């Protein structure tokens, strides 16, 4: 296993420690070490590492940098909201705070290069310096010249420095239109099921045997592998549900070898976890509390998405219903639904070619204010005066984001709206006012 990590420039023991910390990533770490070369050798100016989330990009860089004690500046592009912060961090971690304080108030790229060069001549690099940029896809949103300059920083500052970019997306969508120095591309593939098993089974509980924990991970992967291959997520789920898995053992109902019994016990529990805690409907803390309280069935606590019930004033409810009807019904059918004396028109006669598709699949359509009010007056039984309060309720529905304004904000005359609530939400609301919305929807005719 450690045979892959051999490099003349570094001590054997350290490489061994690195290999222990990087299960299933020896190949990538070996490639990186080969690219980096011995500490005093010049490395390639820029390396671009891409791979899915939780494929160990940052971890590998972190372990390599810390274990081999390489001079490095690890910068997260999310934290560096402005370019000066990035420059400051790099200078800070290479040359200490004196250098960082030399930067002028709003430093440009050339200021950075100048100060870097100046510091570099005072303390020349004995080893390759590494700048590790995490989430580097955000570099594309900064100044257009930053990414090309970072890619050839070695040339600019005339120092033994290598920039390592970590990203989840491919290099093709990074390349600036004016071209740039091409970095070396390195892919971190996803962990396979076996590799996930190997990594997850490392953090076992000390009071249980390794085989027991392995069988637990096996069951967990059997449930979750089809929907989730994210190591972090799986690790989190494994930690959350392990106590439930051990329950039969503590109660003395089963032994460690009763795999089938244990599986029977945990499987419905994991299935429920997929619908609740995996979707963050129920927070991890609530989930743990639910496991403590035996009698209450897990999932009985209402999740986040069950809290969609909103208390609205009476007319607001009708306004929202009217908006929903206006959004999802074609305007031609309004006569048929909302006038008293209309001829019966069957749906087949109404259908145009492009309306075969359900309006609910196409999403809401914009409607003018007049139509909203017309439908509103026909669905409300009593006589309602068009007072200021009715109109202000419309605009407060917009601020609650239940309606959206489609035309310009400043338009007073005939503004257009869209209804932004789901079918479930509106049927819940119409039930509270005893209104049968399905009868009025063209799609369900």
């Amino acid at each position: 296993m450690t045979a892959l990590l051999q490099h003349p420039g570094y001590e054997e023991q350290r490489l061994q420690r690195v290999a222990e910390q990087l299960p299933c990533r020896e190949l990538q770490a070996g490639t990186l070490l080969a690219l980096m070369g011995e500490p005093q050798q010049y490395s390639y100016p820029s390396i671009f590492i891409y791979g899915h989330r939780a494929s160990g990009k940052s971890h590998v860089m972190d372990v390599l940098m810390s274990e081999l004690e390489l001079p490095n500046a690890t910068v997260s592009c999310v934290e560096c909201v402005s370019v000066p912060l990035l420059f400051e961090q790099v200078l800070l971690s290479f040359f200490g705070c004196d250098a960082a304080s030399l930067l002028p108030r709003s430093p440009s790229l050339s200021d950075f290069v100048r100060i870097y060069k100046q510091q570099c001549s005072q303390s020349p690099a004995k080893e390759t310096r590494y700048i590790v940029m995490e989430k580097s896809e955000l570099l594309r949103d900064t100044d257009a010249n930053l990414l090309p300059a970072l890619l050839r920083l070695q040339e600019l500052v005339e120092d033994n420095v290598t920039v390592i970019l970590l990203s989840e997306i491919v290099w093709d969508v990074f390349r600036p239109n004016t071209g740039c120095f091409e970095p070396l591309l390195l892919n971190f593939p996803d962990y396979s099921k076996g590799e996930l098993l190997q990594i997850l089974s490392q953090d076992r509980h000390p009071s249980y045997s390794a085989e027991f924990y392995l069988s637990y991970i096996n069951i967990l992967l059997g449930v979750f592998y089809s929907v989730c291959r994210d190591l972090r997520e799986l690790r989190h789920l494994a930690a959350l549900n392990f106590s439930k898995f051990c329950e039969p053992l503590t109660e003395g109902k089963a032994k460690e070898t009763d795999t089938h019994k244990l599986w029977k016990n945990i499987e419905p529990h994991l299935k429920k976890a997929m619908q609740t805690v995996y979707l963050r409907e129920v927070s991890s803390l609530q989930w743990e509390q639910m496991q403590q309280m035996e009698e209450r069935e897990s999932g009985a606590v209402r999740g986040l998405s069950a809290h969609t019930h909103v208390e609205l004033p009476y007319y607001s409810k009708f306004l929202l219903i009217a908006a929903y009807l206006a959004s999802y019904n074609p305007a031609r059918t309004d006569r048929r639904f909302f006038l008293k004396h209309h001829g019966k028109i069957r749906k087949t006669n109404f259908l145009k070619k492009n309306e075969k598709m359900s309006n609910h699949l196409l999403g809401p359509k914009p409607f003018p204010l007049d139509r909203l009010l017309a439908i509103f007056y026909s669905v409300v039984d009593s006589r309602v005066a068009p007072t200021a309060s009715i109109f202000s309720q419309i605009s407060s529905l917009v601020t609650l984001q239940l309606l959206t304004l489609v035309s310009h904000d400043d338009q007073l005359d005939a503004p257009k709206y869209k209804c932004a609530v789901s079918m479930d939400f509106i049927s819940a609301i119409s039930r509270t006012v005893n209104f049968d919305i399905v009868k009025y929807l063209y799609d369900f005719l």
Partner: protein
Amino acid sequence: TPRHATPSIPSRTLAARQPTNVLEEARTRLHVSSVPESLPCREQEFQDIYSFVESKIIDGTGGCMYISGVPGTGKTATVHEVMRCLQHVADVDEIPPFNFVEINGMKMTDPHQAYVQILQKLTGQKATADHAAVLLEKRFSSPAPRQETTVLLVDELDLLWTRKQNVMYNLFDWPTRRHARLVVLTIANTMDLPERIMINRVASRLGLTRMSFQPYGFKQLQQIITSRLNKVKAFEEDALQLVSRKVAALSGDARRCLDICRRATEICEHSAPDPSATGLVGMSHVMEALDEMFSSPYITAIKCASVQEQLFLRAVIAEFRRLGLEEATFQQVFVQHQALCRVEGLGPVGVSEGRAACQRLGACRLLLLEPSRLGLLQRVRLNVSQDDVLYALKAD
């Protein structure tokens, strides 16, 4: 600290070398920076400007003149020569003495800097732009009987354009004041500049004293070169004629003409078998220099592109023909690219390779591309004509 350093061209440490042979002699004479004392072929324009400025200086009045012409027709050189002559005449007391101030729109970071520069050159005072405008306003509007006439040359006038046009307005308004004694000569490239960008009150103050410099004809260009060379026998007659005819046909730019001649002398020097015994610059050398100057680099770039890049260009044209449009998405072109690869018997090409080829072509501006973050939906257009691409791809 280096933050306050002024950028400058490094100064020369060694003295300039004396020319050793005929060709080097010719090259120094043909250099654009060695402006001769008298400009041939611009006698009429010289006379016009001279008499305009002279009459204003003698009368002690002011006025504006607008000079236009394509680049390389000797506008600035002629005006400078006029000023030199007038200065000479003023030195021998034939006309009253005058100040000459020159500003260049290209050398300013902001149009309002014009005030600062004029003030500094007139009085040596330093002031902010607003203050300088006030001071100049006062200077040109208050009576000062002993004041000398000021001749102001404004080069690259179009860059002094601001949204309110106050800089231009002031420049043209000051000469109309009674006590100003200011002559403004303005130079720009286009003839209809006053009509195009100036509002009426500015254009009317500029007045109708216009002069346009026509591009040089081939005879004039030939004359310019011969006068520059001044009896140095370095060129064959036919070669000179070819250069001037070519340049006259394309632009009539004298600077371009001189550049080509200088390049031809270099080519002649390099192609000679023996460095000491170089002959005259002949037809072939001039032809080579002309080719270098005028041939399109795009075709050479396409010819030298890699196989995949050339295939991509062919795919672009094939897709344009299929769609009947001059624009396609990368996705559409890539399908053609793959098909072409199959036809050519090359290995299948991946999307990343295809995009790399596409973006390399975009970086050297053979293609016009949208930002690369659009992915496969990035739209592709050709920056060269289809005929050029086909010619370049067919040639081998």
